[in-house]
């Protein structure tokens, strides 16, 4: 349906590669290629130093992306949007900028579903401030247990950091309810939207979160660019964490004063071409019928789950709600399966998916993850299942003595 909008898919097909790893990074729409080609071939300029017309034009286009992002996620104001180098950098920014607000004995609430990007910055912050990480329990289906979660909030809870959509299990988390609990207890809320924003409409005000993070490259945009949304009343009070050009007002030999948010968090030359490319990707996505995309992805997910469930020895991890499924196979090592799928041109993710604590919680050494996108097709899944059957025919044979 939409796969013709993604030129790389034809190139991959010509090489016999079936791409089912979009949760790692997504292929790019032609609109993005055109935007990059146009900007890079028509003359580049640095932003926010518009001493001449070209720089003014580029800055205007760059800042228009901030408006586009604000609209895309339902932010109240454009200056609630910070451009970072990655989603990981956005979490690190928060962990440093929020550090003065965290005291010894404070509690940071996390789920075991978190990607390392939304775990390690908080783990390190907790170590620096003698704070404690508290873990929200998950149910067998892979959802945060709200009954248990509600009992873990207390006056020491200072921060909640949770994923909207698990990158391993594909489970949608009760983020809105959790953010409401955080607000009631005076805790800040941080939502990892890296997967969630790709597979559903996001409205940060409806979610009620204080901060929302995503990366451009998973959202059919360029790599090297992350986005941090921060509620204006909070973001405007945070100190800068990296220092350099662009983010200053006045600099003397001994001291400096800094710009207001968001520019105070954008030290150095930002990834200008990536921001312009993201603007093109968002415009492409906005022009799509998002409900048709959601229906397409839901049908593919059902096809994937049904196909896996029909195969002997295959066990899905959790019960996915969206776009991706992880599974293990009895007596088959995920590394062996990965190798045989790769030999047959199937690109899927194998291993621990940057979520070691979750794999430990689930009691598995690793898994195979198949992830879908709006450009995935039933034929991709058919090729995957054929390759899976070929691989399992070999790996499930009794070893010869």
């Amino acid at each position, binding site marked *: 349906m939409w796969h013709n909008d993604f030129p790389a898919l034809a190139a991959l097909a010509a090489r016999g590669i079936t791409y089912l790893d979009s949760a790692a990074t997504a292929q790019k729409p032609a609109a993005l290629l055109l935007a990059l080609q146009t900007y890079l071939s028509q003359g580049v300029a640095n932003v926010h130093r518009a001493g001449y017309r070209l720089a003014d034009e580029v800055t205007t286009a760059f800042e228009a992306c901030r408006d586009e992002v604000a609209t895309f996620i339902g932010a109240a104001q454009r200056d609630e949007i910070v451009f970072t180098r990655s989603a990981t950098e956005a979490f690190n920014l928060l962990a440093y900028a929020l550090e003065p607000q965290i005291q010894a004995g404070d509690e940071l609430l996390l789920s075991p579903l978190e990607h390392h990007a939304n775990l390690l910055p908080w783990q390190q912050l907790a170590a620096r401030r003698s704070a404690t990480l508290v873990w929200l329990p998950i149910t067998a289906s892979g959802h945060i247990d709200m009954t248990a979660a509600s009992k873990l909030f207390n006056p020491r809870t200072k921060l909640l950091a949770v994923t909207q959509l698990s990158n391993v299990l594909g489970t949608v988390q009760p983020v809105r309810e959790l953010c409401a609990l955080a607000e009631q207890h005076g805790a800040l809320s941080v939502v990892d939207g890296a997967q969630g924003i790709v597979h559903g409409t996001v409205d940060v005000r409806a979610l009620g979160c204080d901060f929302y993070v995503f990366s451009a490259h998973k959202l059919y945009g360029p790599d090297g660019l992350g986005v941090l949304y921060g509620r204006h009343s909070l973001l405007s009070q945070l100190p800068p964490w990296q220092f350099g050009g662009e983010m200053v007002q006045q600099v003397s030999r001994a001291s400096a004063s800094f710009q207001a948010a968001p520019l105070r968090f954008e030290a150095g030359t930002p990834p200008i071409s990536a921001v312009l490319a993201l603007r093109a990707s968002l415009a492409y996505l906005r022009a799509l019928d998002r409900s048709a995309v959601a229906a397409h992805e839901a049908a593919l997910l059902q096809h994937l789950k049904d196909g896996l469930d029909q195969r002997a020895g295959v066990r899905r991890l959790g019960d996915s709600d969206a776009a991706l499924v992880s599974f293990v196979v009895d007596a088959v*090592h*995920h*590394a*062996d399966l*990965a*190798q*045989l799928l790769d*030999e*047959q041109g199937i690109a899927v993710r*194998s*291993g621990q998916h940057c979520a070691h604590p979750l794999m430990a919680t689930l009691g598995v*050494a*690793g898994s195979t993850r198949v992830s879908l996108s709006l450009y995935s097709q039933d034929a991709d899944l058919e090729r995957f299942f054929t390759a899976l059957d*070929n691989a399992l025919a*070999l*790996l499930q*044979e009794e*070893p*010869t*003595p």
Partner: protein
Amino acid sequence: MSLPAAAQQVLNLLQQSPSFEGRNRALLQLGNQLPSFASERRNEQDLVHGCDSQVWLRCAQQGTALHFSASSDARLIRGLLACLLLRANGLTAAELAHVDWPDWLTQLGLKQQLSPSRANGLNAVVQRVLALSRAT
């Protein structure tokens, strides 16, 4: 330098079976011939980092000849390890230093398995084999 007999056998087996199914069935069979040690004897010191599946590697000396053994839970990976260890075993450290590993895997039809970015970690295993041989 002529090939060790076990290595010649590996070469014959894989060259006879170029198809997807044949090659991988041969690798699974070779996995059973891997000079191995029991999982109870695995320890942190022998763990080779950089493998998606966990691989433990040991080296013993008989005179000047080196003998490697490995342990892994992944069957196909054991076959790939056997391809390496059956080529290395019985050689001296000086002989091992002259083995052309990319050429060996190319002869086996497994060249792409040795890339440093591959999650199977075969390249890390080769590096560990060489480091262990230098330490003897």
